[in-house]
């Protein structure tokens, strides 16, 4: 019983007054008084428009905001929306708030959400970010519906993006997670996602490791895949940039650390698995819009070259000899002739994943050592794709995914190697 230890007495009291619910939308917050009202409004509008007869609730899990976030959640009066067209909910929309600590933690917030979803016996649940300023009632419905009506355990979002947005996801997270776990979920690392009550119960009973606490949504997706549950994707809309997010090193620690950890924790599932399968997509597929190429990232190249030279001893303990030699060779090239071949990029990542699995050095150091190499790959990618059309870029991503799949035996070989 996860709720025994995770939920506070106050939250338990609030949840017991709700009773049972069909749908739950959770909002993890931390000093979001500027946008939380808009988020609550979008969720309530979604409930009014799409789930009039269903028992619904909104759960706000707060990391100890110093502003008025929690007060706004509880006291915001629903305004008459032009979208409602006279429809009003037949049931009360319950609002529940909980505070879990002094400082934001996605993992701690999600543990409370999972325990609450389990206690309320919800059929579907969605997590939305208050930082997403373009949250639309349709987004909420698109995340809830596949889990509620069609028995999908995990619902990943699909966004429309500009060409040079989400390059870590495009060049590393998506192709590698697809090749390793064998499921083509485009956006496993997102701020919005949906899941079934069954998956919530499953995850609530599991220990959430420190390595996945910053991005627990991907851990949930991998849990669903490895437990044989169905996954889907729902198109939401344009992805907005979140200002003031973590830098690239921290992002790599959070996301790639999460991916490597999942590879390690769920190795029994994927080591014998071959091929990949697509998942059901609701709405239009991944959309890419044209965008002017950013200015040449010479600094990224310098950081790459300096990193390969200075971190020689660290890389030696992570990479296979041949991979390390090839990496050093390309690092000596002139900036105008520089190219990071996709074959080498895949080998580098598989060597890093295997080193993480064997803990050849401290795991956090392995992740930090990847940052300069990613910058090199980013520089090469931007140079190659500066003038390409969205279709050409998509084709390039697909060929990278196939390269990851082609070299999966290499990962398995390195994974099982003794040293």
């Amino acid at each position, binding site marked *: 019983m996860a709720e025994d230890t995770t939920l506070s007495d106050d939250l338990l009291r609030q949840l017991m007054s709700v009773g049972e619910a069909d749908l739950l939308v959770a909002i993890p917050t931390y000093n979001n008084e500027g946008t939380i009202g808009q988020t609550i409004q979008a969720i309530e509008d979604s409930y009014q428009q799409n789930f009039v007869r269903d028992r619904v609730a909104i759960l706000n899990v707060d990391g100890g905001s110093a502003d008025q976030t929690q007060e706004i959640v509880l006291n915001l009066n629903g305004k008459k929306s032009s979208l409602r067209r006279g429809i009003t909910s037949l049931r009360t929309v319950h609002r529940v708030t909980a505070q879990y600590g002094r400082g934001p933690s996605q993992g701690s917030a999600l543990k409370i959400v999972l325990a609450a979803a389990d206690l309320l016996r919800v059929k579907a649940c969605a997590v939305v970010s208050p930082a997403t300023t373009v949250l639309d009632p349709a987004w909420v419905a698109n995340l809830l519906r596949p889990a509620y009506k069609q028995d999908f355990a995990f619902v990943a979002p699909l966004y429309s993006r500009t060409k040079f947005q989400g390059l870590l996801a495009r060049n590393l997270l998506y192709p590698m997670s697809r090749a390793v776990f064998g499921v083509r979920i485009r956006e496993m690392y997102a701020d919005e996602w949906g899941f079934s009550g069954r998956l919530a119960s499953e995850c609530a009973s599991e220990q959430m490791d420190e390595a996945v606490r910053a991005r627990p949504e991907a851990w949930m997706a991998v849990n669903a895949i490895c437990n044989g549950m169905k996954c889907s994707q729902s198109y939401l809309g344009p992805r907005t940039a979140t200002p003031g*997010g973590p830098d690239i090193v921290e992002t790599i620690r959070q996301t790639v650390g999460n991916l490597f950890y999942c590879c390690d924790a769920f190795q029994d599932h994927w080591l014998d698995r071959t091929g990949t399968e697509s998942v059901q997509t609701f709405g239009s597929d991944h959309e890419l819009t044209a965008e002017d190429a*950013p200015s040449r990232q010479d*600094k*990224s190249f310098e950081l790459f070259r300096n990193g390969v030279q200075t971190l020689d001893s660290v890389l030696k*303990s992570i990479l296979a000899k041949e991979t390390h030699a090839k990496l050093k060779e390309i690092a000596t090239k002139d900036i105008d002739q520089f190219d990071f071949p996709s074959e080498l990029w895949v080998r580098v990542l598989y060597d890093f994943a295997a080193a993480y699995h064997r803990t*050849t*050095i*401290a795991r956090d150091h392995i992740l930090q050592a990847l940052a300069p190499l990613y910058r090199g790959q*980013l*520089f090469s990618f931007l140079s190659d794709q500066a003038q390409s059309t969205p279709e050409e870029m998509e084709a390039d991503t697909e060929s990278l995914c196939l390269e990851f799949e082609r070299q999966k035996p290499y990962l398995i070989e390195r994974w099982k190697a003794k040293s």
Partner: protein
Amino acid sequence: MKDTIVQGLQQAYQNMAHMIAEFLPRLVVMLVIVLTGVLVAYAFKYAARMILRLTKLDRLSEEAGASKVLRMAALPSMTEVLSRSVFWITLLGFILIGISVLNIAGLQEQVSRLLRLLPEIVVAMLILFLGLVIANFLSRAVLLGSVNRGYGSALLFSWSVRFIIWILAITMALDELSVARQTVLAAFSIVFGAFMLGLAIAFGYGGQDLARKFLERSLAEKKPDDSDELQPL
């Protein structure tokens, strides 16, 4: 004259025979003790190896970076190092007990002195080992942090941290052994103080621009570099 010589030789022979008769049983006892020691040391070694494998010490040692230090020093795994240490410490103990049984004047005192020092030697070795491990871990952390922030002197920063921790560990180990305590402390203070003063002067005079840039970067609002402006997710 002849009788005196014969008598002297007889006396010497008797003394030698007496000494041998007295020494041989002690030597046999010593050999028995040492042989027993070898057996006990082997038993301790295998027991220690089994316990350490059960506790998955090697994995912990890998995570802490200790195994890398051992590999750099061409040493085997942590489990192997500790179990071999148990073997040699046990054997050394038995050898010293055996030597004390020989009852050789002067040696007894030296042996008991060494025995008294044994725990301190072990502690000093442990301090040195921990110092190496910590120095290795922290210097690598500094190296990675400096490289990712684009500092030009990443290796210098990293080696400075390693050097300071080594000096500290060596000083602590020597202090534990009570070896020239005053001299060691004075030497440490001088070396450490000179090092920090050198850094301060180098940074203040030689790197005024660097210091200004560093402070500006540290105190100003954090701005992501070019590549970070591209949203990674």
